[in-house]
């Protein structure tokens, strides 16, 4: 796991989440902007997956449970597509809020993944 990349990823996911929450609560239906924000979040997760698979070969090993790490990663990968699918199906302002909820959940999960990879307090 590359630490700076992970922090960028958390920041992007939080920004995308807040953007969707604000636009959704302001009454906007899902748009190219909000769906696109989730697509960026998903793209970064795929990059993270590639990095996680490659990193141990370069001496960058997780300190915590590999199983737990990948459970979070796979779970996070499922969220943006599910939320965007929902947004395409039902074009209401609340679908935009759902996009935001998904992006914020991804941010929390990526942060947890960083903890599992770098520091183990439990």
């Amino acid at each position: 796991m590359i630490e700076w990349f992970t922090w960028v990823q958390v920041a992007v996911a939080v920004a995308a989440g807040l953007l969707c929450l604000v636009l959704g609560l302001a009454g906007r239906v899902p748009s190219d902007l909000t769906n696109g924000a989730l697509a960026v979040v998903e793209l970064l997760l795929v990059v993270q997956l590639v990095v996680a698979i490659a990193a141990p070969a370069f001496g960058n090993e997780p300190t915590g449970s590999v199983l737990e790490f990948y459970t979070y990663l796979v779970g996070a990968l499922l969220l943006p597509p599910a939320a965007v699918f929902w947004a395409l199906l039902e074009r209401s302002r609340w679908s935009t809020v759902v996009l935001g909820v998904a992006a914020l959940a991804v941010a929390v999960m990526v942060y947890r993944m960083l903890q599992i990879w770098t520091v183990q307090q439990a």
Partner: protein
Amino acid sequence: MSGIGRVLVAVYGVLALAAVGRSFVQIASKFEEAPLAYSLSALAAVVYVLATVALIRSGRGWYRVAWATIVFEFTGVIVIGTLSIVDPALFPHDTVWSWFGRGYLFIPLVLPLLGMWWLAKHRPGQVALRTDAA
């Protein structure tokens, strides 16, 4: 289910995913350490999934399932949450409900309340009437 209820379903879905993921990790890697706590985790995870499905589906049967699962969750978070503070030795390993769901931003404590409020306001009969009118 419409409007802001959709958001409720989404948050339930995320919590269900979190509970299933965590329970999977616990059972796959260290079940023998705390069979009781981890079985409870698995049960809680299944109930969250069931609650999510019940909230999405319509009809009187699913409405009852939604109430049952949400009340079960609320009871769980209150009982296990209290026990984990009063007698921490009982639950040395974290469950989704320990300390009233502290590990999950207290979402397990707040969500059932929102769920019950939602269900009370949207009985199947009323929803049917509204659909007929529309």
